[in-house]
């Protein structure tokens, strides 16, 4: 057992590992106690705010403005699910949650499909100026979405898309595309050429190759991209605030309760908690993809 536990330690010389006396191990364990305590303190510090929001959301309306959430430790009987049942009967919030889900799903599916198609074209179809056009698409990564808010506000008003879920979906799709194309093209280009050539020789159409070969093989990249894009659209506030009036996503619906923050906490806290349960669930379910995608996007 001791050997297995020690394998985690980077001990360079095998002999040293086997011969380390018990007393030395004890010393090392104790010398690490302060470090463990410090890191435990930091970890708790990082968890407390979210826990605090959750416990706040469990406090009844008349208590929440007088007592801190930590009173639930000494008086657990104070907690109630009342705020959550009120939330479910609050139509502004429930319809905002539905809108958010629609926008997040649409805003994830479209850029991934469109990005995969373009990524395939940039990776495996020959056409003049291919690399230049690809570079141009990647260059669009530098455009902050603030550059599009004013023109699209006017455009949406002109074409009657203002205040619709579709307007948000399309906006998120477009701004998710440069990265999607960049990532997927780079992933697709790593697919062995022989695989594609033999499919082509067998007479498969490009569409068939794309659907039967590229998409399944690209699944790892598509998965981490999907997680990112879903979180991005679910968590959006700026775009939805600009193009929605009655069509509100959850962040905007919470924001419209801000006018009386203190007295609305019994609504704001549970609504905010519900809004973050979904991305947290996605995060915990797909943590591995999430971290991989993050690393793909920043260092590698």
């Amino acid at each position, binding site marked *: 057992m001791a050997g297995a*536990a020690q394998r985690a330690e980077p001990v360079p010389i095998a002999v040293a590992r086997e011969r380390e006396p018990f007393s030395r191990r004890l010393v090392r364990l104790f010398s*690490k106690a302060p*470090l463990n305590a410090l*890191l435990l303190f*930091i*970890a708790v510090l*990082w968890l*407390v*705010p*979210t826990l*605090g*929001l959750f416990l706040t959301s469990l406090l009844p309306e008349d208590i*929440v*403005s*007088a*007592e*801190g*959430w930590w009173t639930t430790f000494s008086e657990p009987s104070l907690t109630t699910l009342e705020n959550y049942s009120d939330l479910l009967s609050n139509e502004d919030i429930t319809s905002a949650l539905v809108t958010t889900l629609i926008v997040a799903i649409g805003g994830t599916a479209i*850029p991934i499909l469109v990005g995969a*198609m*373009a990524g*395939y*074209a940039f990776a495996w*179809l*020959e*056409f003049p100026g291919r690399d230049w056009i690809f570079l141009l698409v990647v260059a669009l*990564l*530098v455009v*902050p979405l*603030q*550059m*599009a*808010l*004013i023109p699209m506000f006017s455009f949406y008003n002109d074409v009657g898309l203002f205040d619709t879920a579709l307007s948000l979906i*399309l906006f998120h799709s*477009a*701004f998710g*595309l440069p990265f999607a*194309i960049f990532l997927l093209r*780079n992933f697709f280009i790593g697919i062995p050429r022989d695989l594609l050539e033999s499919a082509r020789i067998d007479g498969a159409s490009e569409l068939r190759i*794309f659907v039967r070969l590229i998409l399944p093989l690209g699944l790892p990249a598509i998965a981490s991209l999907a997680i990112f894009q879903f*979180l991005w659209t679910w*968590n*959006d*506030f*700026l775009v939805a605030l600009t193009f929605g009036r009655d069509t509100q996503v959850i962040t905007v619906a*919470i*924001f419209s309760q*801000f006018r009386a*923050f203190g007295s609305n*906490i019994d609504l704001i806290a549970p609504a*905010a908690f519900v*809004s*973050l349960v979904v*991305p947290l669930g996605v995060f915990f379910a797909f943590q591995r993809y999430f971290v991989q995608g*993050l*690393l793909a996007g*920043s*260092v*590698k």
Partner: protein
Amino acid sequence: MAAPETGPGTRPGLWRRHRVTLAFLAPAVVLLGIWIVYPTIYTIVRSLFDRDGSEFIGVDNYERIFTTDTLTTAIRNNAIWLAVVPALVTAIGLVFGVLIERIRWSIAFRTAVFMPMAISLFAAGVIWRVMDQRDTDIGAVNAGIAAVVDAVDPPGGLSTAEPSTERLGGTPEEGLSFAQPLQGGDVAPLGLTAIPPADVPEDAKQAREPAPVPGGIVGVVWRDFRPGGGRPGVVESEELGLPGVIVELRDGGGDTIGKVETEADGTFAFEQVETGEHRVAIGPETFEEPFEGVDWLGSKLITPAVMIAYIWVWAGFAMVVIGAGLAALPRDVLEAARTDGASETQVFRRVTVPLLRPVLIVVFVTMLINVLKVFDIVLSVAPASSQDEANVIALAMWRTAFGGVNDFGLGSAIAVLLFLLVIPLLLFNIRSFRREV
């Protein structure tokens, strides 16, 4: 160019190939063209026109960015953000990344710190707005500070008390002193009012005015109030003594030469005093107020408050990216340095950090870009009353274009400014990113 052998079907094949290519590219071209390329050009052009777009005004909007008060505040704040936050986030990420290599539960730690990355910046702001409430009874941050402050420097028991008569002068900060100079054999009744019943110590007994002691100064500190009022300055029945109050004896020059604590009935005694004039006073510690709570969400501290929330979110990102860089470091180099007798701090400063430099720079630059665009979290942490002081460029852009002012010309100019600031940073990141691949 020599004409190639054009077999039958080559031309239609070529056409078909391009038709297929176009079909694959068309949706992307439409989305990128309408939602990114066209708006970018439009915004640049629009920034040269006035509010409603009817008149060309050249660079006037750009001049206004630097001459309008709320906008210069936004630029100044964003500069502070740039100077403080990316460096802090990178440093925290580096320290966490290095430290968790030495513990067994690093995955749990990483999950805890990384978790806020998954939730929206808006919701993170809501979380911190709840944490940052001023009242120490409901704001967790201030409750935490209060617990520490009040333990180090306990508040006085009678922070609200006031003199019951004008015979007691001075201020709570220097202690309330008996106005009349005293000599041995005198008695000093020190009456206080405005004490809530909860502040009266539980062991308090009926107050009693002590009999004079020859050569000494005695007196009583009591709650000079009884149901119905009573006569100020006179110890009456049902009026309680105030035990545990520090009474100071001061000499003619005002220096404190002795201290005693009052008894359960409020009495105190300096048994023997030298000849000459003395004064007695209730010490200032009695009136010290408990910790009031820091006004995080007020106009003075709002930017640091938002920054704390933002760092809480992004530290996990830095930690994970830097941690991956650390894992990729050549172990033998680190071990060689240790074998050569380098201390852990030397290894960290001379070997780890230089080797990690590329990763640290990518994290730092990424954070510069993120900080330039900071928006959601400012709106969710800062109450409307302190948003002017919390203003940043992206928020100023939104407020100018959509938040009531509705000046699309100036709003476009701010967006272009943001664009210009982001371009070099992103190009840098894309370049170092391509080099790594």
